[in-house]
């Protein structure tokens, strides 16, 4: 598998590490309800199809990247910097 890092271009999977669903970008505020924190920390969808997930280009430029990937076909539909991703 290769991921197109927006900074480095097409790079091999082994340069990246996986964090999980891009929902991790939507951190609730400190005053948010317990349910919101619980959802943020623990609740993940498991779709058959497109999913947005976070990858870290630790073996490269150090960018966090939001990768849109199809869990059925493994096709990578897009990759943007987490800095620039819509939450």
């Amino acid at each position: 598998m290769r991921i197109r890092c927006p900074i480095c271009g097409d790079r091999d999977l082994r340069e990246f590490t996986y964090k999980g669903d891009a929902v991790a970008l939507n951190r609730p505020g400190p005053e948010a309800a317990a349910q919101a924190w619980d959802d943020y920390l623990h609740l993940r969808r498991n779709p058959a199809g497109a999913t947005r997930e976070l990858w870290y280009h630790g073996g490269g430029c150090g960018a966090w990247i939001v990768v849109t990937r199809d869990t059925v076909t493994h096709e990578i539909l897009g990759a943007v910097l987490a800095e620039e991703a819509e939450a």
Partner: protein
Amino acid sequence: MRIAGKGLIDRDTPVHFRFDGVAHQGFAGDTLASALLAQGVRLMGRSFKYHRPRGVLTAGSEEPNALVTVGQGAHADPNVRATVQEIYDGLEAHPQNAWPSLRYDLLSLNDLAAPFLSAGFYYKTFMWPRAFWEKLYEPVIRRAAGLGALSGQPDPDAYEKAYAFCDLLVIGAGPAGLMAALTAAEAGADVILCDEDTRSGGRLLAEDEEVDGQPGHAWAQALTDRLRAMPNVRVMRRTTVTGVYDQGTYGALERVGQHLPHRASLPRACFWRIVAKRAVLASGAIERPVAFPNNDRPGIMTAGAVRAYLNRWGVAPGRRVVVFGNNDDAHRTARDLVAAGVHVAALVDSRHEAQASDAYPVHAGAVLCNTQGRLGLESVTIRTAKGEERIAADTLAMSGGWNPSLHLTCHMNGRPVWRDDIAAFVPKPDMVPGLIPAGACHGAFSTHACLEEGRAAALRALSELGMTAKDVPLAEAEDAPVSLRPLWQVLGKGRAWLDFQNDVTAKDVALAAQENFCSVEHMKRYTTQGMAPDQGKNSNVAALAVLADATGRSIPETGTTTFRPPYTPVAIAAMGAGAEGKGFAPERKTTSHAATVERGAPMIEAGLWYRPSYFPDPGESHWRQSCDREVRMVRESVGICDVSTLGKIDVQGPDAGRFLDLVYTNMMSTVKPGRVRYGLMLREDGHVMDDGTAARLSEGQYLITTTTAAAGQVMAHLDFVAQGLRPDLDVRLASVTEQWAQFAVAGPQSRALLDGLLDAPLDPEAWPFMACGPVKVMGIAARLFRISFSGEHAYEIAVPARYGDSLFRLLVARAEALGGGPYGMEALNVLRIEKGFITHAEIHGRTTAFDIGMDRMVSAKKDCIGKVMADRPGLKGPEREQLVGLRPVGESKEMTAGAHLFEPGTEPVRVNAQGYVTSVGFSPTLGTMLALGFLRNGRARHGERVKLKDHLRQVETLCEVCDPVFFDPDGGRLRG
């Protein structure tokens, strides 16, 4: 025996080898199978389960019977297919799965016990009593039923891995593949052409036919030479494409040294990862056997294999051949044999319309219904309209039609479709994105059709890649239509083998259906059909047909076969090439490594780093002596320790302070330039991630440290927070761990040591505890931090890594002059246990700031990562196991990390557990063993007694619970 003048072998180059201890001679170009057949050796192995005598069935990598072990000792390579192994001078091959010998295999008694070993026997016969399974049945069965054995020693051979990229990967160099490669290469595409054979041509090497007016093999050779000469083409022979992966990635195994005498420098195999924009699959087809009773004796082969041995290797597999088939290839075989002067005793064609011949008797509408012969075929029984008849024969060539080798198209979950006209599965379009099947693997069986499909596939690939094709003319070649009538099995007395490699019969499959294992997947698991190293290449379709018949369904209704990587077996050593030993765990060495090793310090691993355990002095024979001395040295004079392995992250920008406030529990934005603060980081779930220091070098620059173990994790985490959560903050991070060599200078003499070394002496007023700032050592800019992990008055001095070696030597020399010296990890650990300082033994991922007594460090004035979740119910309170110190007070003084804690009067069982021990060490300062651990409600229990119990190491010690800071609790030494 050899036929004069026939074959593509080099008769001027004899090759000497041994099989089963017997010396043989073959020729360059021979496989082990062809050379043995030429010598009249038919018995090459014993079957997996019943130890039936078996000979070679095929002439290719799909061979199920002729598996041998090549080489000896640790170099032995088991389950090598004799049909693939090229012979070389000195080759030693051994038969497998036979004891004591191939001819007299005592385990063939299994064959007599066959009624008990039928399909599903695992589940039925040995269910009871339970204990017998592990102790008796399984070991016995495993010994009796098996393939070649591994040596049990580490593999000393070299393997390699390699990567390649191309526009078009062509898999298979038969007529379709060659035509595809040529068409793409002429258009300027970067082409890789792989074939598992030693030369190109595919079936053309095995057939007596012309292409473009020349022998097929010569046409293939000329075209290959032309391709090789093109700069944009890489021709890879002996290379099997074994798997298809995402995004046009293909795994391929190249046999590099397996066909040559052993040389240590030569890798045996190379595993390639090839990334191709497009691929053409031209993998050909595999002929299928027919399941008739006793169809497994040595001398029985597929018809295509008989033609291959005849035409390619000039070997007549026998003197009297019977040919049996349901299609025109049977006739082709008989014609080739007669033309080569081999006697064809009969052609048995299951089709009533079969054509007669002048050259050999043809039995139309007849079938093979039995065979005879103990260690090899002696005669066959045929069944005609007139009844049964026995015909003497030493060789039987059988053809049940051909199965397209579509395996790779299934590697990404695609399912093929059934074609009635050729009675076979063919790939659907686009089962693998970018992979275009062409030729026989696509159901196109004539040479002409293969050439045409190969060209068309390349044209499609070129157009998808936006490349312009040139006109490449098609060569003249045969274009015979397929004429076949399905024939899967012949009923009769005796076992009809489907899966030769796993000893599965047509009856086993019918039995599975009878016991309601009607789904293909269930049938496979029940019978083990298709689960041998050949992965059902020879048997899947026929087994499916038998299952369809047994369940009254059509083949497409019954299901399809599933193929997974690898296409042919791949040694794990090849896939993992470069990742063993130091390739798996590279060594990270500090700048003081050489000086440390020179002093005889044993090195221990800390992640990938190597750090000194202790520095033995002359006369010390036990690590404890060295450790105790080093601890006393730090407490009494001064010690030097390389602490460069701790992670160092440079944090810069106007918002650096605000950023650190978010990732640390405590306030970092209020640290003044020139000062250091200890900090704690939580994970978002409220547990402790790491601890370290943040030194504010200037208004907009902090240097933070992490523990050695968590350096990578913390860097990724900080990058995530900066980029993913707070991209609005103006802050930049860089890991500088390797750029700086850093040494602890610890002990009452530490300032004295530095004062002579630094370009200017330290002003005690300007350098209180937790100060930091720039200093110079012999004109070199350095950083000094007054921090301590030992509890002593201490500094850490950092210089650019290139000066690390010389600074370490200088520091040690100066320390020795003051009565000190270097210290290692053992002493470092004791020093920090005496002070109750935590490491990842304590912050192991399940502890909170509350647990380690640092709840007060979570600032109430601000948000931080993990703060909300750390307040969850259950993460604070008396029910938590809290950090405590422990010291022995009973007879036993032994303490072990990992031991559990109990109330003294209770039974040491799980339900009574009160906590556990995380760190232990002998304190020379206090003259006792000390431990850190976690105890339920421990902070309220100082002074109580608990029982330390280590069930694994049989330790039981009565301990007193105390404050974790055993030594200098008010920190006077630290600050003084």
